């Protein structure tokens, strides 16, 4: 039997909320799919469109960006910046034909281990539905 397709996902998590959130999911032993490589950034605003595009260029099937809830940002308004950045990145992804559905921005606080697992599970399912991103040259 052929094994089910396992997408490769890059998850950016901010140092102050989402990364500890992912950590909490781990220490609380909450189960979630192991498809994502989590990369810690100091703030979700650090994730520039280039990070996302490069992830796709190098073979990622989906990119998940997580940060503090609006109003909770360690740097006051970094996540608002991130929201704007990702909105534009989504537009670029649509133009390029990768599709904005392969990118998601979510807010996960340090206390929401369960939510992190939920977000991850639903995103992995979403990417599984979309299938592999084929990097075929023109």
């Amino acid at each position, binding site marked *: 039997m052929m094994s089910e397709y396992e997408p490769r996902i890059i998850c950016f998590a901010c140092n102050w909320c989402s990364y500890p959130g992912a950590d909490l999911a781990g220490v609380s032993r909450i189960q979630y799919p192991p498809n994502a490589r989590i990369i810690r950034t100091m703030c979700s605003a650090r994730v*520039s*469109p*280039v990070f996302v*595009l*490069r992830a*796709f*260029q190098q073979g990622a099937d989906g990119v998940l960006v997580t940060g503090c809830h609006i109003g909770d940002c360690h740097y006051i308004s970094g996540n608002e910046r991130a929201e704007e950045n990702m909105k*534009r990145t989504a*537009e*670029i992804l*649509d*133009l*390029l*034909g*990768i599709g904005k559905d392969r990118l998601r921005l979510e807010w996960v606080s340090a206390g929401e281990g369960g939510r992190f697992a939920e977000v991850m599970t639903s995103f992995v399912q979403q990417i599984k539905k979309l299938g592999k991103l*084929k*990097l*075929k*040259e*023109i």
Partner: protein
Amino acid sequence: MKVFEEIVQQTKAYYCIDCGICTGSCPVARVNPRFSPRLNVEKSLLQLEGEIVEDRELWSCLTCGTCSYRCPSLVDYQSFVLSSRIEARKAGREGMLTHDGVLKLMMELQTFAFPQTRTGWIPKEVKTSAKGEYLYWVGCLPHFDVIFKDYGTHSLQSAVNALRILNRLGITPVVSPEERCCGHDLLWNGDIESFRKLARYNIGMLKKYGVSKVICSCPEGYRTLKVEYPKLVGDTGVEVIHISQLIAQGIKEGKLFLNPLEQKVTYQDPCRLGRLSGIYDEPREVIRHIPGLQLLEMERNRVDAICCGTTGWVNCTSCSKQIQTDRLKEAISTGAQTIITACPKCKIHFQCALINSDLSIEIKDMLDLIGEVI
């Protein structure tokens, strides 16, 4: 290096008489003393290729063609830079990317066969067709529109206006969703492999649509399709026209009537359209044709026009800003309220310089100006 011997042969660098006109004319050398075209040519003749390749300033050249145009020995410095960059790239060198490199990545990602959705911007009131004689080449405008939203340049507006104008001229062009980056910036940054891929694809795409004429509004796309594709990849099988040529012709034939507009404007010659393609008069004819509009020339115009300060989204430095602000001041000194340019990149670069200065002048695309008066 054997390669550099070839470059010297091809660009006729051995004719260099060391007069220094190139460096004296260079807009970059004026503000950046570390950059000198003459020195680079000398280095190649003294077989110091390693220094050329390693030099960060290799990427500062605007490839605007002023030096080649004025060179008494007809050294093709532009091709010299292009070939040197190809070599430098092989050695793992690259210019300092602006905007975090997002534009380069976007161009590279277009070499993958993703099903693009790039025609969503076309408004309902303009007519386009699926097949026909003419194809309108949109170029990077949809991408610029997203990336440079903060600058308020609204790049797509000029594409919409281009289509409106073409409709008025009785042309219902094809706008292809399968069009990809023309590869201009990749080529000038030495990435000739990706350029070839894109060029082959685009030539195939044009053949598939069966069009015989391609209308470009972007000077870079115009020159790439018209000159670089046949030179480096193969015949495109189409006639490439710049939109200003069509508009000028349409006005002559009485197809297009323009409403009056009381304004003083000046015109910036984009390097790819002016010096490198020889189109100086058509945009001016079009602008002059608007009743009430006064076209004031800058001191350095036509072949002597100064470039907008950056090309290919690399090495944008304080020197680029200096070139841009100098040019803006020159435009203001003519007494014009608006700079008209025919290149979306000029518009973005000048707008960027304007935001960071206390100068006040409006920057407008030629097509947006015409769009206002039809």
